[in-house]
Each structure stands twice: as C-alpha cells, then as structure tokens.
C-alpha cells in the first residue's frame, strides 16, 4: 500500500514540474524582446567552442582519430546533453543561496517535492540556446560523416542523448546535494559539470589513460557521449574495453539517478535552516 501511494505521488511530479515551469515562463515572457535577444546570444556564445574546433581542423586532418565530421558529432552530443540537462535541472545549482539564507524553508512546507521546486525555480527558456546550437551542429556533422547507418546505431545515438542528459543532470543534483554539507562546494560542482562538458567535447583518449579511467569508473562522463559515439562510429574503445561499452550508458544513467537521489535526500535531512 505504501508502495502504491508513493507511486501515485511520483506520477504527479511531471504535472507539478510543468505547472511551475509554465509559471516561470509566463513571468519571463513579460519581456519578449529581451527573451529573444538572450536566446540568440546564448546560441552564439555557446557556439564559439565549436568554432575553435573548426579552426583547428584547418591545420590538421584528424584529431585523436576523429575527422572534423566525427568531432562535430562528439561536440554536438556533448553540447546537446549538457544543454538539455541544464534546461531541465540547471536551476538546482542555486540551492546554495537558499540554504545559506534559510529560504529553503519555504519549499519544505509545500506538498511538492523540494527537488521539483528546485529544478523548476526561475526556469529560463533562454537555456534553449545551447540545445538549438547543438542540434544545428549535429545536423551539419551527420551530413559530413560517411557511415553505414543501421537501426541499432540510430537507436544508440538517440538513447545516448537522453541517458547523457540524465548523467549530466545527476551530476548537477549531486553538486547541489553537496551544498548541504559545504555551502562553498558550488564551485567544485561547477568544475565537474562545465569542466566535464569541456572534456566530453573531445575524444577522451587524447587526455591519457588516467583521465580515461577517471571518467569511466569515478565520474562516468565517458558514458555521456564518448562511448556511445565510439560504438556508432565503429571505433575501438580505449583501455582495452569492449566496443559495446557504449551500450551500458542506460545502466550508468540509472545508477547515477539512484546515487543522486540518495544524496539529495541525505542533504535535505541535514538541512539546518537558519535561526529566525
């Protein structure tokens, strides 16, 4: 019985999330011009990293065994997954401020999970800029890659966007959960997500074996896009790992969700508010 009520409660989450998100969108659309402007500027700013990659290829033919088109695929998937994770859960990094000021109290008296309120808080449509930009790069890149497409490869690519976003999102949540322990850990969390995103844009093997081990076994960023892309492109995996390792991405995503949810709950129970 307890199972079914918690299931029923969980079923309400998407609706609650949508309701809060719509509320924030409505209040931000009060200024449509500034919305459009920030959307375009986000696209341009996030696109500059890829411009750097393209410029690099005017001097070289391949980078870590990847052609320009293949780099585009790697970059596009990295940027897309980060963008989607940021769109859906990015607001949670601001939890530190609420913990410090005790404003989290307000979320905790409501019948909606604090998590839903945290990820929907100040939801900003302009964060669509990065996924748009990533989508553009992906379309162009796929046009430049010569590959025997199979249904399996297509599915792996599409599913990896979802699982990659989940892995990034879980890292965001883990970073937020850490802020219940040390309020100053926001920077550390940022270095994992945004720094991690920098890594995922490149063929990870170029960083050396130790980094590859770290992003496989410790912070599983390699499963965000690198291993799935290797599988799709039919390239061998590093460290003598089997080439089907990319197919484990969904399992890694599930494990990350479990880890993040335990950490988040633990964080909430440690919350001490402020004197008032």
């Amino acid at each position, binding site marked *: 019985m307890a199972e079914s009520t918690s299931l029923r409660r969980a079923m309400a989450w998407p609706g609650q999330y949508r309701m809060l998100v719509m509320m924030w969108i409505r*209040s931000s659309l009060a200024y449509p011009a500034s919305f459009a402007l920030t959307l375009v500027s986000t696209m341009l700013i996030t696109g500059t990293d890829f411009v750097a990659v393209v410029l690099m290829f005017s001097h070289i033919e391949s980078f870590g065994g990847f052609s320009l088109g293949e780099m585009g695929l790697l970059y596009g998937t990295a940027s897309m997954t980060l963008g989607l994770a940021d769109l859906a859960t990015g607001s949670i990094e601001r939890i530190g401020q609420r913990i410090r000021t005790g404003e989290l109290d*307000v979320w905790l*008296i409501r*019948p909606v999970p604090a998590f839903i309120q945290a990820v929907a808080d100040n939801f900003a449509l302009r964060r669509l800029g990065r996924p748009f930009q990533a989508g553009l790069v992906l379309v162009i890149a796929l046009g430049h890659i010569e590959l025997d497409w199979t249904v399996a490869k297509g599915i792996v690519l599409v599913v990896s966007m979802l699982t990659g976003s989940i892995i990034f999102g879980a890292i965001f949540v883990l970073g937020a959960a850490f802020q219940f322990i040390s309020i100053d850990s926001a920077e550390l969390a940022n270095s994992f997500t945004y720094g991690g995103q920098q890594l995922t844009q490149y063929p990870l093997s170029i960083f050396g074996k130790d980094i590859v081990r770290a992003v496989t076994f410790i912070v599983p960023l390699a499963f965000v896009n690198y291993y799935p892309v290797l599988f799709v492109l039919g390239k061998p995996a590093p460290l003598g790992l089997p080439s089907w390792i990319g197919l484990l991405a969904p399992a890694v995503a599930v494990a990350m969700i479990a880890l993040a949810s335990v950490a988040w709950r633990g964080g909430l129970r440690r919350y*001490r508010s402020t004197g008032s």
Partner: protein
Amino acid sequence: MSVIQLENVSRAFTVTSRTGLRRTKREVRAVDNLSFTVGRGEVVGYIGPNGAGKSTTIKMLTGILVPSGGSIRVAGVDPSRNRMKLAKRIGVVFGQRTTLWWDLPLKDSFAVLQKMYGVSRARHAENLATFVELLDLGDLLDVPVRQLSLGQRMRGDIAAALLHDPEIVYLDEPTIGLDIISKARLREFLAQVNKDRQTTIILTTHDLDDIEALCSRVMVIDHGHKVYDGTLTGLRSSQSAPRTLVVDLAASLPPITIDGATVTKVDGPRQYLTFPTTTSAAPLVAQIAATYPLQDLTIAEPTIESVIARIYANPAPVTD
C-alpha cells in the same frame, strides 16, 4: 483529541565560532527535552525570550528540521518523514520571510498554490473571496509581492497559508512590524478562522497583546525548556509578582509608612505602593485611610509583561 504530540524532543546545532584564527565548535541545544500535546481547535501562544527555541520547535513541527532526539506526531504522522503528506494539512506563516513568489502578483501566487495543493476551483474561489474581504486584500491582488509593504505582504502570506483549509496553522511572529490597527484586524481574523473551522493555531510572538486577545493557552519556553504551560490567568498567579496600590492624597506628603507595603514612587500627591499577591488589599487600605488624607485609590494587577519578565529572569522549569 490531540493533533500535536511531542515527547522528549531535542534539537542541537553545532555552531562554529571564529575568534581570530581559531575555530571552536560548540553544541547549542536549541530545544531540549520538550514534551507537550495540543488538542484540536486549541489556540496556543508559544512565547519565550529571543533564542529560546520557538522557531526551531515550529520547524520541527512542520518537518523542515529533523529532531536530534525524541518523537513528534502531527496529525498522526512524523513530520520529517512524511513532510509532503503533512504539508496539505498544515499552513505556515513565517513573519520573517514570505512564502509567496516575489515577482508574481499576489493573485498569481494564490493560483499557483491552488494547483500545488490540489484545491478545487470552487473551494479556492470561496476561500479567496472570504480572505480578500476579511483581510482587505482587494486592492493588492494585482500587485507583485515585491512591491507590497510589510503589513500588506503579511496579510497576503496569511491568506496563502489558509487557502487550502489546513487543520493546523503555525504562525511564527505574524504580527511583527504591523501597526496597531492591522494587528487588531489580524487577531480578529485568526479568532474567526479558529471559531469557524476549528483550526488549531500555534502562534509565537513577542507581543503579549496577541496572546491576550487570542490564546486560551500559553506555553513559555526558555533555553529550549518548557517553563510554563497553562492559561494566561494561571500564568499571572504562578508568579507572585507584586501588585501596586496607587494612592491619591489630599496633599503632597512624605512617603507613606505602613506595614505590608512599600512606597516605590512619589509623584506629588500621588504615591505608588507595592505589596505581594499573598497580602490582602483591604487592611492596607484601612490603615492608610486611618492615618492619611486619602482621596482616591486604585489597585493595579501586575501587567502580563512584568509577569513574563519575571519568568524570563528566573525560569523555574515546570513538571507536569
């Protein structure tokens, strides 16, 4: 039937203080072995000096804070384990911070709450109409919360806390910063809600008029301990605070000397004498009338402020 039960509840905080370069850790027991029960429909005034542990208690009752020891049941559940389930049944007002959305007009905040709490449209409209009238919110509905004055915002917050028909309402300093008229209106409103809906109310305040106007029961807490629990009248007599005899004589005279009372102040022909609650006033009056040109006389009961001040000054934990 009790809706709130606390048994030996404690909450400690580790506080790190920095003196120069040294950091020392210290444990503050904000709430220490606190037990009480509250029945349905009661209005309890929860008072105590700054730092007594009032807000901490309320945060544990709402499930915001997890107790470090003891057990809490609110409406039959453990608040910190069933926080969201409980949320629909309670309303909370923090005088110090708003639960509304800064950038949204008041009515949009209310609309979001209606959806969050799953209140039917009809019931929402009905409650809203009632609260708009009783709290005079009509002109404020279209104003973003950010632009409301403190008192206006507080009224909005109180309406927000009650829109989902909570069984229990916690108000942590709801009258802070309100003018006299707003305070009176708020008290009236809360009394009305309690009467109409049998809502259990727990209220912390530093304004004892709130307690006098609203609360059938007072709990006094100090250093995390309960030091008094009972009626306001009982609170007065529990502390044998001295009563005052105000005597108007026919002329300015040197201080009156009689047995059983001492002069504390002379103000021209008016003299103030204090005497213990245990002494009867009649023989004192007779004595004065016999020896002095007495014109008028009043007996002042100890003010509730002076009673409370005595408790805060030398708390004697009650056992019950």
